[in-house]
């Protein structure tokens, strides 16, 4: 990672401003995070209050995005839904990044038996189709938000582990690592003080790109009825309602979908930009 000096930060900002896609992504994401943070204050209506408008009312001046079958305001539900859909994705990625990084650091640094065992574990996890792993976990743990985070997160662990393992193996060879070992620094302290900062760039890039996927996957589980349960607004389960009323109320299907798409496309545009800036090795992968 480049040093966090002011000039380094300024340079990054200038590069961001020259990349219109990433710039747009950053703006949309900032707006979304604001909505997610302040959604319940900004929302024009209570998202779970029924009958604030007519049932299945088309978009008009009072209800910009229309209303659902219980007469709930769709705009308010989407705004408050951002509070769930974004954190579920972020939590799933954090879960994957945390355990994947630990596994990658351990296998890459210790080598030997730890590596052969850990690498086998990584291969086995990659051998499963991701959605099967997620559905298997839901089948065992049951339906619910926390279980969705775990189910989506576990699929990401081997991907983080593989990249961190590779980066750790090359960082291990540095002279300062040898020096730290020579003065008797403990292995885990050395890993966190000297190796981790060196493998941070690929982790950040992968985490950004994986966030988009995690949001899509967890919303798909919501859509299949395995995530957040109604009446709590979540974009995936809202789209499942939209599917039921497709013939009569297009807005129920269009607006939650657009929100989801805009979120993920912004994250991916920003992720592509970060990949170019932080980690030239990952380019074109």
């Amino acid at each position, binding site marked *: 990672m480049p040093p966090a000096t002011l000039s380094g930060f300024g340079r990054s900002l200038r590069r961001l401003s020259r990349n219109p*896609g990433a710039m747009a992504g950053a703006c949309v994401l900032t707006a979304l995070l604001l909505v997610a943070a302040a959604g319940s204050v900004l929302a024009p209506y209570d998202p779970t209050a029924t009958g604030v408008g007519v049932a299945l009312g088309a978009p008009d001046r009072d209800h910009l995005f229309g209303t659902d079958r219980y007469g709930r305001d769709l705009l308010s539900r989407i705004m408050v839904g951002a509070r769930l859909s974004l954190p579920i994705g972020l939590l799933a990625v954090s879960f994957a990044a945390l355990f994947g990084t630990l596994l990658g650091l351990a296998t890459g640094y210790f080598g030997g038996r730890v590596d052969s065992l850990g690498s*086998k574990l990584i*291969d*086995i996890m990659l*051998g*499963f*189709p*991701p*959605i*099967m792993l997620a*559905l*298997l976990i*839901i*089948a*065992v743990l*049951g*339906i619910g938000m926390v279980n969705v985070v775990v189910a989506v997160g576990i699929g990401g662990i081997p991907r983080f582990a593989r990249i961190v393992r590779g980066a750790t193996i090359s960082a291990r060879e540095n002279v300062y690592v040898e020096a730290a070992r020579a003065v008797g620094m403990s292995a885990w302290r050395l890993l966190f003080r000297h190796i981790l900062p060196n493998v941070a760039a690929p982790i950040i890039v992968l985490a950004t790109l994986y966030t*988009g*996927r995690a949001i*899509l996957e967890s*919303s*798909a589980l919501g*859509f*299949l*009825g*395995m995530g957040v349960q109604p009446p709590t607004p979540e974009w*995936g389960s809202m*789209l499942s309602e*939209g*599917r039921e009323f*497709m*013939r009569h109320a*297009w807005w129920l*299907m269009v607006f939650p*979908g657009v929100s*989801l*798409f805009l979120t*993920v*496309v912004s*994250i*991916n*545009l920003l992720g*592509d930009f970060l990949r170019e800036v932080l980690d030239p090795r990952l380019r*074109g992968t």
Partner: protein
Amino acid sequence: MSSYIVRRFLGTIPVLFVATTLAFLVLHFIPGDPVNLMLAGAPASVELRENLRKMLGLDLPLHEQYLNFLTRAARGDLGISFKTRQPVAQVIAQQLPATLELAAAGMLVGVTFGFSLGLTAGLRPNSVVDTVTMLIAIIGISIPGYWTAMLLIYIFGIKLGWVPIVGRGIPALILPAIVVGSFAVGDIARLVRSSIMEVRREDYIRTARAKGVPERRVILRHALRNAMIPVVTLIGLQLGLFVGGGVITETVFARQGVGKLLVDSILEKDYPVVQAVILLVTSGYVFANFAVDILYSVLDPRIRYQ
């Protein structure tokens, strides 16, 4: 070559072992008693419960149950569905053709479009075609597949009425195939593009041009063949996307298929079916990846010697 195949085949065993073990444990991890689930709340005497328990083999020690599960699975006996009381193998066999049909059609769409887009873009980097392709690629990986499906159903099925949205047969397969394919178009196009751009800089391409090989032949014989190598691997990895795409697409289109069966069985707690589908799909995926690896080593002899 044969030693590579053997080595690669042995590598599939741990995954299959873990998959079977996990599938076996599903029934033992779930909260509650499988016998209760099978009875679905119907009143039953203690005797009947004990009989059911014996019938399911739940009275045996865990390791014996596991061995029984393995031997029965190897013989194609996957238990009885809690819901329909039919043999699970029969339930799955009814759904399998529709899923294979969808996966094949989806793969055809994904590979054809992904490949042509990536090739056009890679041959003319930074042109309009290139920009549009990259835009399609980034949209492809950012759009929720089930939402694409809903939009297509709404526009082409309901508003325009061009294609039927239910039933079997080719016309009803068009939209679902596009959806399943769209999961992969973006990734394939991006990889083909970067692969072509990289190969075009190689010395052997310059040599081919210098000795007067027509451009068309340079692309087809020299560039494309080498650019194919990473693409074949990717398609192998994408099989997982086709599987996942199947689960979601079948649900949105309310189509028959193994994916919809799995989703329904999880929601209805029909665990013998869940076990069997997980086992089947994971083994299918593992063997398909095995086949891709073999193909990979045929395309690129360097792989075999590593």
